[in-house]
């Protein structure tokens, strides 16, 4: 299992290296080390789970939307999420996530500009905005398809094929965007 996984990781890394040569060497050792904290944090989360429902029950027994209790649960939820994320996500998926965050930021910026400064070259706005949205969606799809946990959902799609699909779809997307931008 492990060597195969490493192979796949290496292939994907090789493919991704052209995009970001600086990040690549630092990443390969990181992927090998991830399994160790992975097991430890999952055990910690399982130990903490009995505690949380108790606090939740307390919340539910009291006023549901009361300020301090709500904030407390939100804190818990956010903490759990972050812990889970840092623990279980491989390094190259994190790279994808960084790209996703970048796309969200760019898209948000474009949208804010459109709202504040007007949408005059509407063609340009639309193609720019849909380029970010489309790229976001495609990257998210790539992330989903390359995640280990979703392997069962995609019997026909190997990570290599997912990446090839991703490249083809991105090319189509950007062709349309460039054609539409005027």
């Amino acid at each position: 299992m492990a060597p195969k996984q490493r192979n796949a990781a290496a292939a994907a890394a090789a493919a991704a290296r052209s995009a970001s040569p600086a990040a690549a060497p630092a990443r390969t050792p990181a992927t090998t080390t991830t399994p160790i904290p992975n097991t430890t944090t999952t055990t910690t989360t399982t130990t903490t789970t009995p505690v949380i429902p108790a606090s939740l029950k307390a919340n539910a027994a009291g006023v549901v939307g009361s300020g301090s209790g709500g904030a407390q649960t939100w804190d818990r939820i956010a903490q759990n999420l972050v812990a889970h994320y840092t623990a279980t996500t491989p390094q190259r998926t994190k790279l994808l996530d960084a790209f996703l965050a970048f796309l969200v930021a760019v898209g948000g910026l474009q949208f804010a500009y459109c709202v504040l400064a007007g949408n005059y070259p509407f063609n340009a706005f639309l193609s720019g905005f849909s380029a970010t949205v489309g790229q976001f969606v495609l990257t998210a799809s790539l992330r989903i398809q390359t995640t280990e946990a979703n392997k069962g959902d995609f019997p026909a799609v190997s990570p290599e094929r997912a990446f090839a699909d991703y490249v083809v779809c991105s090319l189509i997307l950007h062709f349309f965007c460039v054609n539409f931008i005027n």
Partner: protein
Amino acid sequence: MSADPLHALASAGKGESTRGLLRVIILALIAGASIASRLFSVIRFESIIHEFDPWFNFRATKYLVANGFYNFWDWFDDRTWHPLGRVTGGTLYPGLMVTSGAIYHALRTLTIPVDIRNICVLLAPAFSGLTAIAAYLLTNEMTPSSSAGLLAALFMGIAPGYISRSVAGSYDNEAIAIFLLVFTFYLWIKALKQGSMLWGALCALFYGYMVASWGGYAFITCLLPLHSFVLICMGRYSTRLYVAYTTWYALGTLASMQIPFVGFLPVKTSEHMPALGIFGFLQLLAFLDYVRSAIPSRQFQTFLWLFAGGTFGIGLLGLVIATSAGVIAPWSGRFYSLWDTGYAKIHIPIIASVSEHQPTAWPAFFFDLNMLIWLFPVGVYLCFQQLADEHVFIVVYALFGSYFAGVMVRLMLTLTPVVCVAAAIAVSTLLDTYLSTKSPKPEESQAAEAAEGKKGKSGLKSTSKPVVGIYSIWGRSMMVSALAVYLLLFVLHCTWVTSNAYSSPSVVLASRLPDGSQHIIDDYREAYQWLRQNTREDAKIMSWWDYGYQIGGMADRPTLVDNNTWNNTHIATVGKAMSSSEEVSYPIMRQHEVDYVLVVFGGLLGYSGDDINKFLWMVRIAEGIWPDEVSERSFFTPRGEYRVDGEATETMKNSLMYKMSYYNYNTLFPPGKAVDRVRGVHLPDVGPTLSTMEEAFTSENWIIRIYKVKDLDNLGRDHMSAAAFDRGQKKKKATKKRGPRLLRVE
């Protein structure tokens, strides 16, 4: 072995490669059959473009081939909608013309010189062969039995519901759009099943092609989100759905916006909003899915409620604000008429006046689909039994398609594919059940039962499993032969319908003489040819919009209005000119520089699709713009009848349309015997008189009558008095007009 050849034959079909070869051969034969059954009109008449809209497509294709793609894209047509013109390149769906242009150039490079007209005539049959193959592929995704796919291909190939729009010469957008529709659905199912971005992208590309070809693309735009929504509601959200849908939407929407006619519509109109909404919804679901895997379920519940409730509220609020602020256009009239069939009749007569926008009469379903219509529910039921994601698609499509086919006649076309697929599943299930040669040996099952009985305890009769099923040769052969008879009858029906109902070019009419021989009535082309040869190159022709495309295509003369109907006011102007008296319509015609007026009159021949029968729509459309000048009521007798004989109302008798239709008509008959064969009434002895125009041409059977609008009178008189003078009538009021005499007192 007495049955050696039989065995050989039976074993021949068993190898996988032999089966594959057989399938290919059968599919090729089906494609050939579907092409062949559409050629009736070419054989009976000639290779000619049919009806109305195809004439515009043909003209545009000729323009494309002659002037190249870029000129076509920027084409401003000043020979239609005079004096407005039409930005044709930006207001058409270019898919059809570009397809035939590409075929034309491809054949040219292969040094096969083919006339562009023949490509246009034969495009629809060729694509129907492809549609059959697409139906095969789509059905194969639904069921493992490949016989279902072949049956679906066969049904699709010859179902009259589809043939009605794809006979040779019917060079309309639907000719290629139905193929694209079915193929897009196939790609969608493929993308959904595999969760592959590539299939999703292919689906988006074909969706883009579909958008470029037909306004009915909105059907896909609404159906795919609906399918996704139903899947989500059934708790079947999967990462595959996310990948397939978002890839399709992101790429497909961009692809659709490349077409100038569609432009910004996908982000601005309400018809496209469901797709956008589901797109956003899927992003949320994907995020929630991730969160659910990350945190314990109790926490997730609170998270879900707050998060989902908040987002839904914000989204709904945003949509309402955007719609009320006018950022998103409200639903267009054509779509309102899909929900409320009476809407168009009240608000938009121009939409209601088109016969293919009328609600479907129920016999039409049987006429167009024959036995498929009662096999259709069986197929849907069988889909319910398995109910994987793709079967949900068939169920959703069936419901959606049935509703719309019931609302509008021409949407029968979008229902036909799903009916074919469902019926093929039903028939193939039946055939597979009754044709399987396996039958369990009763001894074996008894032995199994006995073994079970020893293990268990009771010999109760109800617990023992009898051998259930139909295993006698008789029962099977009865069932199979009955089905075969039905299938043969279906083929007969389809051929009959195609040959009798759907193969008339409607430009050329055919009738039978008493001795049974065929008589061709070719008045349309006769008249258009007359226009082409006897009028100036830029003579403006006024006619009702139905004939605009034909005049542009066959006579090559500028027209005032045509079948594009983009400008209701302009059409209403023509309607007003037709329905008013000469004094009112002459200035209108002068203003629009009309040289000739063309009317269609079927009274002599009994041709019911003539202008007098369409006249009320002209009145209604004109009344919509000038309610105080044109009134529909005044065309009806006090008893509410629409009459053209001696009892007709004064408004009717004075209207230009009536005068032009019946001018000189009574001279054909002995006095007092003039009869209108369409309305079946006797006409008054004295026919109408025309003073502002003169008869220029009347075709052989009087179907087309062309009038020349008179120039201003040389002596400055108005036309009424000039005509009266010509008839030898004395001016009555001449003395009165002179006024009192004045005495010169200088």
